[in-house]
């Protein structure tokens, strides 16, 4: 299990990386933390002819506090994000998710952007992107644009990112103050990809009705899924276990569950419902204690 040959370029900046991409086009791949890419290359499943390494650009890890949320430079390692005081203070749910990613040795090298671009539907950060209405700052040699996380994920390991584009930064938006949140996942062992995962955020208005809801499922279908149908049923309602169970029933309408060597699509469908109820209930309990 040794990787095939490739040409290696160490990018000094994102601009430099884009420039290199524009030259090498489809044959080139961006190498950030490499925690998924290098494994695939060792198996020779992945054989890019050119690697553009952005892990050594100037201050790769950068986290900036912005009015409506937190901007994380794509090359920031998951470990840095996980331990960042601002993130811990404003986006505790993101910290929770980061702690669920593989093992600390992986998070020391794996990057926030890398995990998102790798677009494994079972991994946590794509799901968090949907949960936190994230916006992706994307750049190529010729242009820059911003894309909502919602429009980004197409299927397994396939995203809207063009072959000449680089993900530069991610803006994770801060949910309403006093919101409650929760993340639940079933994995066979600690650190494994989730067989099924669910995350939720709930905020209440003054008279205790649900004013804001986000429900996301991961590890279930070929992409992470935001369950708007579930959210719609909650907003404006008085939250209760019954309501949550009612709402969670819609999960099956939203997700096209997949089977694998561990569990069947049916298992994924049912457990997605179960975990959604749990996330919602825990989120609610945290809202009440929040204010």
């Amino acid at each position: 299990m040794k990787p095939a040959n490739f040409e290696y370029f160490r990018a000094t900046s994102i601009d430099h990386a884009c420039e290199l991409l524009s030259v090498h086009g489809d044959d080139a791949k961006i190498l950030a933390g490499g925690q998924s890419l290098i494994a695939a290359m060792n198996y020779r499943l992945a054989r890019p002819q050119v690697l553009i390494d952005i892990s050594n650009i100037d201050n790769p890890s950068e986290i900036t506090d912005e009015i409506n949320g937190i901007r994380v430079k794509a090359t920031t390692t998951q470990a840095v994000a996980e331990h960042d005081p601002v993130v811990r203070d404003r986006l505790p749910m993101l910290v929770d998710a980061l702690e669920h990613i593989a093992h600390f040795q992986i998070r020391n090298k794996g990057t926030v952007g890398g995990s998102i671009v790798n677009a494994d539907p079972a991994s946590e950060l794509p799901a968090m992107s949907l949960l936190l209405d994230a916006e992706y700052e994307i750049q190529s040699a010729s242009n820059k644009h911003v894309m909502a996380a919602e429009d980004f994920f197409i299927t397994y390991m396939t995203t809207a990112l063009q072959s000449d584009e680089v993900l530069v930064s991610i803006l994770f938006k801060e949910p309403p103050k006093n919101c409650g949140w929760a993340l639940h996942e079933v994995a066979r062992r600690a650190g494994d990809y989730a067989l099924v995962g669910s995350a939720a955020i709930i905020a209440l208005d003054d008279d205790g009705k649900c004013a804001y809801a986000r429900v996301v499922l991961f590890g279930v279908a070929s992409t992470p899924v935001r369950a708007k149908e579930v959210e719609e049923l909650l907003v404006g309602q008085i939250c209760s276990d019954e309501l949550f169970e009612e709402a969670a029933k819609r999960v099956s309408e939203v997700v096209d569950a997949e089977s694998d060597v561990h569990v069947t699509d049916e298992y994924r469908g049912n457990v997605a419902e179960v975990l959604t109820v749990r996330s919602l209930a825990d989120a609610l309990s945290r809202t009440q204690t929040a204010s």
Partner: protein
Amino acid sequence: MKKPIEIAGVTKHIGVPRKRSEDPQILMGQAKYVDDIKLPGTLEVAFFRSTHAHARIKKLKLDGAKKHPDCIHIFTNEEFSAGATTFFPNTRGTLHPVLMPFFAHGKVRFVGEIIAAVVAPSRYIAEDIVDLIEVEYATLPAYNDVEDAMQPDAVLIHEDLESNVYYADSFSNGDVDKAFSEADLVVSEKITTGRTSAAPMETRGVMATWGWDDTLTVWSSTQMPYPLRTSIAVNLGISEQTIRVVAPTVGGGFGQKAHFFPEEFILPWIAKEIKQPVKWIEDRREHLLSASHAKQCTIYMNIAFMKDGTMVGMKIKNIGDSGAYSQYPWSGLIESVAANNGAPGAFTVPNISFETVVCLTNKMSTGAYRGVGWSAGCYAREMVMTKAARLLDLDIIEIYRKNFIRHDEFPYTTSTNQTYDSGDYHKVLEKCMEMSDYEDTKKQPRSTKDGKLRGVGIAFFVEQTNWGSRSAEESGFPATLHDTTTVEMDPTGKVTVRSGQFSHGQGLKTTLAQVAAETLGVPFDDVVVLDGDTATGAYGMGTFASRSAVIGGGSVIRAATDVRNKLLTIAAHVMEANAADLEIDEGKIYVKGSPDRSMTVAEIAYITYYDRFTRPDEDEVEPTLTATRHYDPPAAYANGSHAIHIELDPQTGKVDIKRIVAVEDCGNMINPKVVDGQMRGGASQGLGMGLLESLDYDESGQLKNASFMDFMIPNATTLPDIECAHIVTPSPYTEGGFKGAGEAAMLSVHIALSNALVDALSEYDGPLVPMVTPIGPQQVMDLINNTNQPQAR
């Protein structure tokens, strides 16, 4: 039967939990595993392996690959002149050998079978070249399930056989039909156990080089250096004394490395052809595809019970899944034959009959892995017993107690003709129940506040240990197994133990030294154990099948006793005392009662070698202090019990292991700390089999989880601490009263786990008893969903 040797003197070393002498170099990263050994000019080998499970090779195209500038050579069956078998003359003659060729010729029979070997300057380049090899296949139907492969119209995996079944035998004792007709309850189930892999952290690896004088040195990550040496000699037609096999530090084996694999013959042969050292290090994907698999059986288990839980009869059909070949030296019979011969376990089963069938499939062949046969066989028996307990409204404990062989019944010959030497099963079970608060926990409500279900399960096992010829015979294997040890005391009184055993994690360098120090009466630090190198050891079968403490330890006791006696004879002469009055203690020889009349062992040793004027005449006592002894002991049967507490999430099927208790009786312990280590490691592997591990093949014979990402072994959060205890009933048959400990450790963990699951689900309509391993979230939910909702009792 010869009476075992009493260990003389005060026990200063045996039974002491001393730390292991092999550890410091490992902890400093200085231990050398095969891939750490460097020889100048070593070339690397990568194999081109079949991507098809069952196909004829129409055309093998090497041209592209050979054009690669760095391609040194590509070997295939065509160039492989040596006899193409991995057969070792060590099993029943009547059995069709179903040999695995070194290189596939004509057809391939499993995904991962070797078709060609590429030699290149580095593994990276070798893999580049492997990528350039092309094959045209004509595919044939592939068989994943034995019961499909057994069909009369099934395509033959080996055309020289009449059927894919290459072994079928039956046995009967007592009046089974009568027992079943008179029983109050008969429980019949089909049980299937998952295919797993020992998956040691170090994969296999082989390096070979030829000397200027035509001597061959082979480094292999093996558990059995001497049998491998003989096998290389036989298969490559080399005279054995010119071969040196070295098993350097080995990163775990668990039985898997106690086989002969094609790579171990191909590498030496290639080294000779290209006249340069060559190395092959197996990668993890290769390992999961083509290092022997284990434990997959399909078992039809029928047990007849009386109302009070008495087992009156047992009827078994065990179909072993051999994979595509018979793996030697043990053959593909190893799982099902061992399972059936040990079927009664700890119980008196007066009437028993079994059928043993071994069938080929298109998967890597099945071989030894810790607890061979018994892991699957015991599981089948126990799940049926557990179901019976629920149907008879008894606790499994009551069925155990009712059917246990009593301690006053030993030696006890089972209905399958195995003679158990010793034990106190009731005592071990009570201990395990007490430590695990079994009865109290059973009284607690199943449901926890957070909607989980609590469960506790217990299980008991008997394990046949110390594979010498007689153990093997009692398990249905006409194999010849024994071991040899040479003990040398040099002129300075220091001791070298040359062993045929081989430690690859078991700490034998420590435990065998403890036995030698004890027997000789010298300080532990004065003893060095040499193992793992045929140039410095003594011919032995190696370390597997819970045999080393007993057979290795026993042969050390024998040889060391000879040296001790000689030492005393000479000392008596020198000290003008009666040998019978002399005592040896920590290197000092003194006359009993008057410690002032003493000499050191070193002084006597020096005299023995260098002072013919002081020592006795040569015709009285031969000079030098060396002895070589052999040992092929009677079978000794260890026993033990596991208890497991779980919390089950009935909505997701997730099982959390809360507590594990392990009680074992392996007779006298040489080093209790090492025994604990075995118990804990075994518990983890048993849990792996019960909870996680399954090599899953699809209908076309593709392994679906050829990575550690999807083939999962336990990690540190899978299991809690493992509470250990020991009950000691020494074996009356073996030197030192030792019984084996290694495999026992994993024999009933998966059973205790399933019993805990059954307990957690005991308020559901049922009884719900899993008849498969492993039990992942999917299997738990399947179990639950086959029933109605929970009902209040």
